[in-house]
Structure formats: C-alpha cells, structure tokens
C-alpha cells in the first residue's frame, strides 16, 4: 500500500517535472526559420551545385575520371595548329576545344571528388541550392561555350587536320618504306656482288 502511494507520487512528480520542462519551452524562443523569407546562410565551401569556369578548363578529363557516378561528360577536340586557344588564368596552355562539358546534377552525389584533381581549379562547388526543375533533363548543365556551328566547324577542321596528318604520316611511312626497300635492294645487290667474289676466292683456293 505504502509502496503504491510512493510509486504514484513518483509518477506524478516525474510528470510534473516533464511538464515544467515543456512549459519553459512554451514561453522560450523558437528556432524555426521561415524558409523562403529567411534563409540560412551557407558557409563558404558549401557543397550545393557544381560549377565549371569553362575559360580555365584545359580539357584534361581528370574530373570525369574521378567521378564515382560518371555524371561529368566531356568531349574534347584537339585544336588545329593554326589556332591558339591561349592560356588559362593559372598559366596552363589550352590545347583542346571543349565541344561538350555536361554535368548531370541529377546524378551528382556531391562528394567533391572531382574538385581536387583539377589542375587549374576550374571546377568547384558553389553554395547555390535552389535549382529544382520539373523536368529531369533540365538538371543537365551545359558548360561548353561553343556554338553548335562552331563545334561542327572545329570538328571538321580537326578531322581535316587529322586526315592531313594521317596522309602526311602515310606519305612519310611510304617514303620510309620505299627508302628502306631501296636500301635493302642495294644491300642485297652489294651482297650479291660480294658473294661471287668470295666464292671465287674460295674456289681459287
């Protein structure tokens, strides 16, 4: 009986302690942030969206290779010799046309792994998080600044040059082969000429 009374008393006491805590909070300040009106300030280096400073990109493909989910899609075309693409702000010479640099933010897992290998620090996360879309394909960000015609032109040029180079190389190879054949022929002749001599000498003995 006494124990029951004690237990009841303890129950009531713990309930009142709890109610004391909640009523203190009732009159305390709230921690809610009214989101669209008030926004939390993101710290520097917050990982929210990938951004590429395309002017600094040298097309080395390191970020695409570092990505665990393959959300970076890069296509490069070697610049022809008559074009100088200049240098990046870090001083690296640019050798490739970037005909495609797409990042699919729907796939991105915000791991930051692509940021570290970049030699020119041109790919990085920006603290911008309000970019929801109705269509998933709109989440593919195109960073290449080349116009489609330009891309076609560049590709054609590159192909031509590649073809020319190929032709040149073939020419060279042919020449080399010819020369080699010539040389071999000469050597053979020489050998032919020399052999009988030897034979004669041999026979002479």
């Amino acid at each position, binding site marked *: 009986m006494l124990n*029951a009374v004690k237990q*009841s008393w303890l129950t009531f006491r713990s*309930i009142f302690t*709890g*109610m004391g*805590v*909640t*009523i203190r*909070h*009732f*009159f*305390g*300040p*709230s*921690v*809610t942030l*009214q989101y669209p009106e008030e926004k939390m300030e993101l710290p520097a280096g917050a990982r929210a969206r990938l951004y590429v400073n395309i002017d600094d990109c040298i097309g080395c493909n390191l970020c695409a290779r570092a990505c665990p989910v393959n959300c970076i899609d890069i296509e490069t075309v070697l610049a022809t010799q008559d074009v100088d693409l200049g240098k990046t702000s870090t001083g690296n010479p640019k050798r490739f046309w970037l005909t495609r640099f797409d990042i699919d933010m729907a796939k991105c897992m915000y791991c930051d792994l692509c940021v570290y290998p970049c030699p020119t620090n041109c790919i990085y996360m920006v603290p911008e998080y309000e970019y929801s879309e109705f269509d998933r394909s709109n989440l593919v960000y195109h960073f290449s600044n080349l116009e489609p015609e330009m891309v076609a032109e560049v590709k054609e040029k590159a192909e031509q040059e590649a073809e020319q180079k190929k032709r040149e190389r073939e020419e060279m190879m042919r020449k080399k082969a010819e020369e080699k054949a010539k040389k071999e022929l000469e050597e053979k002749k020489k050998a032919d000429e020399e052999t009988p001599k030897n034979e004669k000498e041999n026979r002479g003995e």
Partner: protein
Amino acid sequence: MTEYASNIHPMAAILIHAAIPLTIILVYALVAIWGERKIAGFIQDRLGPMRVGGWHGWAQSIADLLKLIQKEDIIPTNASRFLFKFAPFMMFAASYAAFAVIPFSSAYIGSMINIGVFYLLAITSILTLSVIMAGWASNNKWSLLGGMRSAAQMVSYEVPTIATVLTVVLVAGSLNLMTVTEMQAGNDTLGFLPNWLIFQNPFLIVAFIIFFISILAESHRVPFDLPESESELVGGYQTEYSGMRWAMFMLAEYADMLLLSLLGATLFFGGWNSPFGDFMSGPVWGFFWFMLKGLLLVFVMMWIRWTLPRYRVDQLMHICWNILIPLSFINLVLTALWEVIF
C-alpha cells in the same frame, strides 16, 4: 430568445437549440485544431502553422477543412460499406447530442432535463460503439486492433468517470447540471474562495484528479491515446478513413474533448459563475467564464499531450481497474461520510 422563437413555431425553437451548440462546436473545433498545432509548435520551439491567413496562420484550419472537403472519399474494397460510412457521423452525433444538457450560461441551456448528468454519460457511451464500428468496418487489422483497444479503454474508463461524477452529484444533490452550477454561486468558502465544489470538500480534489485522468482516457488523449497511437497502430480505427469522413472523426474527437472539459468545469469549477462573486457576472460574462474554464482544461490536456509518452494497453487497464476504480469508490464513500458529518 427561444421563447420568442417558440411563439412563431415550435420547430424554430428546436432548430435554434440545435444550432447554438453546433456553432460553438464548429467554431471551437477550428480554433482548437489551429490552437493545438500552435501550442505543439511553441512547446517544441517551433512556430506551428504560419502561412495561411496572415497573422500566425490563423486561417490554417479553414484551409485544411476546404482541402478535406475536396478530397476523394476512399472506401476500401472489402469494407462493410454502410457501417464504414455511418461510423464517423454516429460518433459526431453522440458527442454533439451530449451538449444539450451543458449549461453554457445562466440564460442558456439546451434542455433543462432533470437527469442531465445521466443523459450525458449515457449518450457519450455511444462513442465506443462508433469506434468499434469504424474499426471493424474498415477490414484492416490495424483498424480492428485500434477499435478493440478503444472499446476496452472507453468501457473501462467510464466506470471511474461515473463514480467521480456521482461523488459530485452526491455533494450537489441534483442531476441537473444547471442546478449544480447555480448552487456554486457566491464567494464565501473560507472567506475568500468561490463556492466552487472543488473548494468545498477535500475529497472532491481527489475526485477531480481521478475525473481528469479518466476524461483524458475517454477522449483518447496522451498518455492514453492508444486507439490511434500512430507509432504502433498506424492510425488505429482511422487508418482507412480520408477526406470528410476523417474530418468528422477529428471534429468528434475535439468536440468530445470540449464536452468533457466543460463537464469538468461545471462539476468542479462553478460552471458559468464568475470567480469574483458578482463582479463580471451576467449571462454573457457567464458564457465567457464557462468557456474560459473549459478551454483552460483543454489547454492542460494539450500540454500533457505534448509532454508525455503513452501507456501500453495492459498498463492502461491496470491503472483503471486496479487504481482508479477502487480509489474513486473509496473516495465516494469518504465524501458521503464527510457530508454526513459536516
């Protein structure tokens, strides 16, 4: 007003009698749902609804209501259709009908019957029936479990509720709630306290505590909200309900909460009597004081709701049958002795 209406047509008086509590319930429910969410918000360091209607989202409940009206009315394929549709309305009807005997003010009571308390307790037990109906008709195991729990709980807790109400009736000497309220008028207990029943007899304080715990259980509030305990039984008997039918459950639940709080205010806190004697009394002030007392009790119920965890079903029964019922009957006997001696 009602006399005037009955002069025109007897039906008009009935309609007015029906409309007044309904208006009170509906307005109260809109405010209370919003209020509960605000209270929950403030207790939890949040703000609660803030968007609809400008100042602190006051129109949130109205927006919710509009949404619920538009929602598709889903009935499970294998549900018992008639019972499923009927249960929420029966539940609301039960708690609504009980308001007839609540004396809202010295000038207004729905029905001045002599067995008011008896009528109220009888009509609220229909609630149990509708909960079982809803749980069974849904053809869902969780609903069924919720319904069965609820039936057991409400049937059990009716006993201590009735025993404590009986204690008050014993002291007051009347089953008519108007009479009970009228006899609590005045301000001379111990010289300064109002003549409320809770101050008149020490055993009535115990009775009030038992009564309050029982009405928490009767109206399914934490720590006794087992029928709808969302973390165990998903939604209890409400699991399969949506749209307007679900809203009826919600309405009935809040109406029930108000009903029992108002009953508590009438029985223990002097009903529509002003706490300051004659100061600020009169029919309109009476209504104000009455609702204030009721709403304070509702606030305490909400405050408890957002503080405590819930009991388990066997512990709930243990509390009822092993503690509250014996205690309330002992209390009844002791009150009677006190009344005889003094």
